[in-house]
């Protein structure tokens, strides 16, 4: 479903992605972890071309993302993206946030979009917050609206860029719970996160990145108990101690 072939990316002089080869299958949940600045966010931002790559190929749903002639607008509608900072539209209510794209991109009628929006917001546990503005919601609630916004486009893929990093600890779980349910329903997901509990429990594979390289990728059991690379071992020892 998602395939990286020899992908390189530079920010000016900085080589942020080095020869990435990666394949994610339909209904697979891949967790990407690694120290900050290792290129994991950049990796998933390349998938819907929020960032462009300089070398290599990215193929999503048989569409060539690396090819500048590919119409990304259509492809992006198939890919939900959840940001660390939520990025909800502050001038719109929760319901307006989730219905905008279905109405404008998919040309769904207002009524159908709102019915669906209500259904999805209910699914993420926010049925009583439909008409609240983002500023009136807690961080965890905002992030769940952001996930609902992605889901309302009925995406084939969901990408999560550190979805819980900006949240207070007591709110992390409500967001992870929504993501667990999604994984159970068979959504194809790539999740950049430091939540190793989530990785162990939900993911099919865990990838470790460092200095723009994909160091290791393995099923969680193997990844956590028998990491192959020294750098993975070092990283795990640092984050699993507390």
């Amino acid at each position: 479903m998602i395939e990286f072939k020899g992908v390189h990316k530079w920010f000016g002089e900085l080589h942020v992605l080095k020869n990435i080869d990666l394949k994610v299958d339909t209904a697979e949940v891949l967790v990407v972890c690694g120290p900050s600045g290792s290129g994991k966010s950049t990796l998933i931002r390349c998938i819907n071309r929020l960032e462009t790559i300089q070398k290599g190929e990215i193929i999503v749903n048989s569409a060539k993302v690396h090819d500048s002639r590919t119409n990304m607008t259509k492809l992006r509608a198939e890919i939900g993206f959840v940001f660390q900072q939520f990025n909800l539209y502050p001038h719109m209510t929760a319901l307006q946030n989730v219905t905008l794209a279905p109405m404008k991109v998919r040309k769904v009628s207002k009524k159908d979009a709102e019915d669906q929006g209500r259904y999805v917001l209910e699914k993420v546990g926010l049925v009583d917050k439909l008409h609240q503005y983002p500023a009136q919601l807690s961080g965890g609630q905002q992030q769940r609206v952001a996930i609902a916004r992605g889901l309302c486009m009925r995406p084939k893929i969901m990408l999560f860029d550190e979805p819980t990093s900006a949240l207070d600890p007591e709110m992390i779980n409500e967001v992870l719970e929504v993501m667990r349910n999604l994984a159970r329903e068979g959504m194809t997901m790539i999740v950049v996160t430091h939540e190793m509990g989530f990785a162990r429990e939900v993911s099919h594979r865990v990838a470790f990145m460092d200095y723009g390289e994909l160091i290791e990728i393995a099923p969680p059991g193997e990844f956590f108990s028998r990491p192959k690379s020294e750098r993975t071992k070092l990283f795990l020892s640092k984050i699993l101690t507390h």
Partner: protein
Amino acid sequence: MKRRTGNACGFSLDPWAPRTLRKLMWGFYIEQLMHSLPFFLKGLWMTAAVSGLSLIMGTVIGFIWGTMRASRSRIVKALIGAWTDLIRGTPFLVQIFIVFFILPEFGIQLEAFPAAVIALTNLASCFICEIVSAGILAVPPGQREAATSTGLNWFQQLRYVIMPQAMRVILPPLVGQYVLLIKDSSVVSAIGVIDVTRVGWLTVQRIPQGLLVFGLVAALYFVICYPLIKLSSSLEKRMSVGYSREKE
């Protein structure tokens, strides 16, 4: 504009003349001024027409330029930036002379009215362009990324996500700029457009009471500008409340 020196402000009167005579003269001048009131209103109408037309067109062009200036294309950005800097850095009087007196040298002959509207529209566009692009750039980039990732195209992003947020930043200074531009429109009197300032110049030659005549001119500008000044400051108050509930 022939006028005898020294009487523009009404000092040609003999300072030792009896008070009663001076009182009489004042009454006479005020009556004269009342008689030329229709002339003043005509001038006010011309001021309103020149600035109204220019502001409407300048707003449209300014929003287009401002959006382009806030976009990614470097060449477009540099071109618009250079033009707005040039216009903002030169006196409007000179610009209007260039349009009216120098363009005919290149075969573009213009009446005073269209010349005035063109020059003022251009000036308005440049100032409004800066206000609009600053407003657009004040919207956090994450908003555009979120809109992009849901599949909205460039125009939809601008229309539904960026502009509604940018307008909060744009509106108060925009209305303030309108006030400045309406006042700048007085410069068009220099090329013979009979606006309210020009009416003042013409009237003061018949009624040598500068204070009286230009007091009326000022009052007429004030009548147009004051509501806008009030509007601008109330917008500023309203907009600054906005999303203050928002958590960072």
